[in-house]
């Protein structure tokens, strides 16, 4: 005799066989103390050899970045390949690439917090750190793209004897404010969230220096009721503050292009398209980092298949939105009456010098992530890892397709040009990966990679009606009455 669910014509999900139980967010009934010691252990125990195998090359690559920057400043921006008509080359491509990666962190930390998505707790810390390091990598590019790095203070509205004042009508200036606000809020948010865990590390620290260091940054946290109330209110307010930033930052970045008149840039679809792309690329980078981290540090019980499954679904959703945007751009170019627009897209996908970038972009961002429709593939970590790396590459291709392709073919053939990056730009891009990895590895070494306090909050034990607590209370009541 079949049960009711199969009789109704569908098969329930294995985890739902018992009523409406959800998949657990922490596997194997881990206790509170297990979580503390497992996460703090990453910081307290010696790092695996692999950490050094990654850290040393990362530092070397970071040195390459510093070298290219020194070379750039001492020689002049001419060492980059960009020139008229393609004034925005890899520097801006890489800026948008990195800033986009940062978006997953804010989405997880703010929007998923406000919408009470409990699964965020074990991935938010690392992805916020990733956000901060990605924005740091991003910021390098526009800062040096201004040409004279030491004049970068011109971007700030400081009354000065040169009577230089910012052009508040320019989206490039909005960009400065959007990105710097984003960075500031992200750092504060990340730090506030770290305070309870820093106190945990302080209390467990064995030697004087780490006790002092963690103690200094823990700001005297004692885990008192009052502390927690203030902390939670501060966290909530910051979440509310940074939620608009998830949408605004990349919208403003897209205005850099959308408010211009260049065919291929001048489209109203850009803000949502950029935001979706940023979340898409950001989650891909989160997974790229989380899959090895959970494996190496034995965090499979905290970052479960459920987490990975959720993130792959977000990638599938946002990737499909991005695919819709690509196709809508093409459709409008075909359907609209603007012949320059039509020509720009004809050049972009069929006749131009960069058409293979477009094909790479389309394959990596739209076609390959469709594999995630299959639950089986979503649960195969190798497949997930390979697909998200295609997405990482695809998002870089997307920015390249948008930026140099459009300006290389302007209105008049007399303004046409071809852009290719020089070794300086290439080494600098690799170097920012080194910088990103270096900071990330230092983060793993010195700070708790998972928000210990928050993960504990979603354990069944933290529910006041947890059966064991009920049993204890019952026992106590019986003892009282006896």
């Amino acid at each position, binding site marked *: 005799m079949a049960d009711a669910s199969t009789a109704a014509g569908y098969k329930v999900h294995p985890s739902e066989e018992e009523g409406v139980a959800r998949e657990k967010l922490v596997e194997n009934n881990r206790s509170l103390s297990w979580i503390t010691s497992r996460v703090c252990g990453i910081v307290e125990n010696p790092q695996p050899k692999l950490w050094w195998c990654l850290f040393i090359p990362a530092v070397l690559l970071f040195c390459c970045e510093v070298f290219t920057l020194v070379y750039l400043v001492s020689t002049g921006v001419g060492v980059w390949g960009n020139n008229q008509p393609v004034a925005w080359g890899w520097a801006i491509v890489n800026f948008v690439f990195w800033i986009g990666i940062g978006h997953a962190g804010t989405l997880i930390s703010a929007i998923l917090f406000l919408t009470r998505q409990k699964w965020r707790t074990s991935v938010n810390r690392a992805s916020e750190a990733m956000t901060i390091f990605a924005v740091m990598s991003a910021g390098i590019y526009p800062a040096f793209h201004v040409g004279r790095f030491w004049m970068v203070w011109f971007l700030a509205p400081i009354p*000065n*004897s*040169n*009577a230089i004042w910012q052009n508040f009508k320019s989206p490039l200036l909005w960009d400065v404010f959007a990105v710097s606000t984003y960075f500031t809020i992200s750092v504060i948010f990340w730090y506030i969230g770290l305070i309870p865990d820093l106190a945990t590390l302080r*209390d467990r620290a064995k030697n004087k220096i780490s006790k*002092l260091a963690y*103690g200094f940054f823990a*700001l*005297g946290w004692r885990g008192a009721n009052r502390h927690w109330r203030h902390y939670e209110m501060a966290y909530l307010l910051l979440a509310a503050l940074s939620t608009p930033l998830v949408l605004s930052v990349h919208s403003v970045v897209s205005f850099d292009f959308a408010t211009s008149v260049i065919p291929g840039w001048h489209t109203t679809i850009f803000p949502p398209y950029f935001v979706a792309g940023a979340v898409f690329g950001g989650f891909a980078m989160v997974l790229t980092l989380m899959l090895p981290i959970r494996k190496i540090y034995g965090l499979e019980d905290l970052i479960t298949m459920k987490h990975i499954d959720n993130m792959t679904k977000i990638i599938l959703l946002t990737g499909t939105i991005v695919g819709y945007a690509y196709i809508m751009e093409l459709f409008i170019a075909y359907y609209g009456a603007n012949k320059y627009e039509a020509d720009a897209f004809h050049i972009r996908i069929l006749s131009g010098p960069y058409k293979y970038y477009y094909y790479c972009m389309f394959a990596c961002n739209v076609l390959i992530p469709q594999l995630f429709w299959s639950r089986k593939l979503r649960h195969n970590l190798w497949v997930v890892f390979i697909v998200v790396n295609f997405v990482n590459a695809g998002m870089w291709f997307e920015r390249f397709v948008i930026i140099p392709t459009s300006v290389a073919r302007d209105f008049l053939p007399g303004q046409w040009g071809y852009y290719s990056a020089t070794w300086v730009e290439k080494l600098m891009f690799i170097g920012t990966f080194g910088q990103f990895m270096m900071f990330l590895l230092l983060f793993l070494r010195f700070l708790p990679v998972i928000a210990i306090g928050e993960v504990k909050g979603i354990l069944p034990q933290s529910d006041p009606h947890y059966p064991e607590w009920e049993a204890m209370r019952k026992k106590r009541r019986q003892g009282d009455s006896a």
Partner: protein
Amino acid sequence: MGNIFPTWTNWIAVKVLICLGALGTAVVALAWYSWTPKYTRVGYMPQQPIPFDHSLHAGQLGMDCRYCHSFVENSSHSNLPTAELCWNCHGPGKVKSDSPKLELLRQAMDVNDENYTGEPIKWVQIHETPDYAYFNHSAHVNRGVSCVECHGRVDQMPVVYHAKSLSMGFCLDCHRAPEKHLRPLDQITNLAWEADDVDREKFYEELSAVKGVSAQKLKEADSNKDWTQELLGKHLKEGWAVNPPQQCASCHR
């Protein structure tokens, strides 16, 4: 577990923050005050190889600026006079030709002088436009901007010094409101000139020729207005169609 930090550290963070804030404010204020041309350039008064006294020549003797700085109306650059020009007056048997102060001039000019070298006099430049800023003297002096606007009362300076800041903000102040600084062309080198010195009858006559409106009408339109620099400047600005550029590329070409 004992306390890691002693009690005195409770407020140390706040104190440090206050001190850092005060220090930051002080540094900003100091930089703001001392890193601007108002501070770094105004008052620069180098010693010149020959102690040429502008207050004597341009002031007491009333020599026109253009006698020595002769290219100023025709060239972007306002020249320094050559030694030959000084020699016109200070040559053998002329004014103060034996003065010990003119030793360098005699070395430069007097072939009969035992110390004759023929070397030009190495005047020290005081007002310097940076290489990245294009400035044209003739464009300014031919449209009613007097020497005094940028160089101050040179006719009262025994030793010339940097009188105005000449910062970019200084340029823009005038480019944004030229009427505050324009004057009739024949008064360009009259450093003591003021708007009240103008012969108004003559001014309106000339203005009517430029504007194509009768002098009477122009005068009536101004009848209930005070005669100020702004009013005069406004007429000149309109008459000459002065429209000072304010784009970056007007000076940074």
